[in-house]
């Protein structure tokens, strides 16, 4: 039976983020949270592998204790067990820090065959945690995967990597880490029984004292401002005169040169 680990991030629901009109500061005081979208694909892929080949699935996340609700969410989507690395300090981590904590937690879970991660998180989308985690664990890593086939009995997966201008098909020896694209599957909506069962599944609660403290951050975020799109709200007719005016306006704004 395959032993699959999926990593997920509990992120701010971007629909709840408001931007202060004058300062462009993000207003985050009443945001909701959710499992990062691509990570849902990773969990779904694990669930599909489980249906096809039989697999155990452990979902791992690194978050402050207030994110506890994410566990039942992940468990309702197919994981058999959750591993919750938590500490109030674990907010706004850099990819290296997250990957180091995940690596330490995963090492504590014993042997595994496959780690599935989303391609990037739906908040910061650095796309780094997967590859760094593979590096820390010393296992091969396949990124941008939109089709994954496990070759039974050979401890091997075939992964289709969707790159900018081509599709690359690679064979990866297990244990390995794969980051998935949203095209790989359509995450199912948890059924009621799955939701109810989630509360009864085991959770490994890992506090920081059981792990090494993460390294100091290398980056400092000095500010995050909302991107704004300015609209001029100009209307033009369809006469030659109006079209000249429209082109003039575009030139003036520097949209065309």
């Amino acid at each position, binding site marked *: 039976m395959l032993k699959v680990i999926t990593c997920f991030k509990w992120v701010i629901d971007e629909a709840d983020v408001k931007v202060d009109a004058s300062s462009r500061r993000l207003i985050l005081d009443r945001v909701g949270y959710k499992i990062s979208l691509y990570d849902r694909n990773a969990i779904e892929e694990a669930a599909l592998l489980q249906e096809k080949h039989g697999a155990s699935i452990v979902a791992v996340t690194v978050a402050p204790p207030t994110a506890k609700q994410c566990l*039942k969410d992940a468990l309702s989507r197919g994981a058999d067990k959750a591993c919750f690395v938590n500490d109030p300090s674990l907010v706004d981590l850099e990819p290296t820090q997250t990957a180091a904590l995940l690596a330490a937690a995963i090492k504590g879970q014993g042997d595994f065959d496959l780690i599935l991660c989303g391609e990037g998180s739906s908040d910061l989308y650095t796309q780094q945690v997967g590859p760094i985690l593979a590096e820390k664990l010393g296992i091969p890593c396949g990124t941008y995967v939109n089709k994954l086939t496990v070759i039974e009995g050979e401890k091997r997966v075939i992964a289709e990597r969707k790159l900018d201008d081509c599709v690359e098909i690679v064979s990866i020896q297990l244990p390995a880490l794969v980051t998935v694209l949203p095209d790989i599957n359509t995450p199912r*909506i948890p059924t*009621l*029984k799955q939701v109810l069962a989630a509360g009864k599944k085991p959770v490994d609660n890992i506090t920081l004292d059981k792990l090494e403290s993460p390294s100091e951050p290398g980056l400092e975020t000095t500010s995050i401002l909302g991107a704004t799109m300015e609209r001029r709200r100009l209307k033009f007719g369809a006469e030659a005169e109006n079209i000249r005016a429209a082109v003039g306006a575009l030139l003036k704004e520097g949209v065309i040169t």
Partner: protein
Amino acid sequence: MHLELTEEQQLVRASVREFCEKYIEPLADAVDQEPCFPSENVKRLAEQDWLGIPYPEEYGGAGADYLTHIIAVEELSRACAATGSIVEANASLVGFPLFKFGTEEQRKKYLTPLCKGEMLGAFAWTEAGAATVAYGATTAVSEGNEYVLNGAKTFVLYAPVAGVFIVFAATDKSKGTEGLSAFIVPADTPGIKAGEQVKKMGLRGALTSELVLKDCRIPKENLLGQEGQGFTIATTTLDGCRIGIAAQALGIAEAALEESVRYSKERVQFDKPICTFQAIQWMLANMAIEVEVSRYLTYHAAWCYDQGLPYSKEAAMAKLMASQTAVRQTDTAVQIHGGIGTVKGQKVERLYRDAKITQIYEGTPDVMRMTIADSLLQ
């Protein structure tokens, strides 16, 4: 005291919402306008375990509490009241009497397929001359090992698509309501036939028709409960259903509020979005307040049900408030939208029509008031 949904209930709400965005909203207009029965979605609802939420797993249910059912009905109705009504009617109107009054065999045979979505059920109560109290123009006569049913029922929700009916008929006309009995009648029984579909103002996807019974013979074991217990079965069932109708009304009112908030931010008049005008803000505030009041009355009634406390008055209060809110606030929503709010294809136009029936079926506001006043003056 903890006035917040549990983590599980919040997850259920989120999953129903996701489901609605994906499967229900896109169909809602067609369901209303054609009208059509969303049978594909019924299959999906069954796969999600939402058709028999409060019943034990041994009967195909999900084994959750009634409040979870209420939340699902509320959320589904937010997207499409007709779909919300399928879940509500199946579990409360038909599932409940089978679960509560049925024998083990009856439960296994009829409740299980209802919970699994293999068939839907219908509750045949109302008769042409009797809505609030069925007086028994439909009769059941005992003949050997069978009952023979004759008569006609009107406004039977889901009759055109139901696989099984709970039919109320007089076994002893001289006893009035005490002479009513309830029967389980499979739709393929000879002599039972759904009549012409009723063309309705709202909730059009919830297909409704007459039900004609002509020498319809059913075996004795299809009697639900005891002879003469029909009225008790009906009133007990309707008490619980009222919480479900309240949830449906609540979902409709919530949708009206959401549409109004969204539209009032977009719609510009006098060079400003109309939400900047106090008159509109007042309407929005009133909507929000009444939605909130309806929500907690409804959740409280469901909570009483789950705790095994009396809930008849609570259910009546929830339905009274929520249905009035739905009717009033869908009206306000159309008002905020202005002319466009009366155009087909606008969600508020549909909500406005869907809301009305929540004030009527399973007891009108004045029937609710009677229930409440009776319990106050006991």
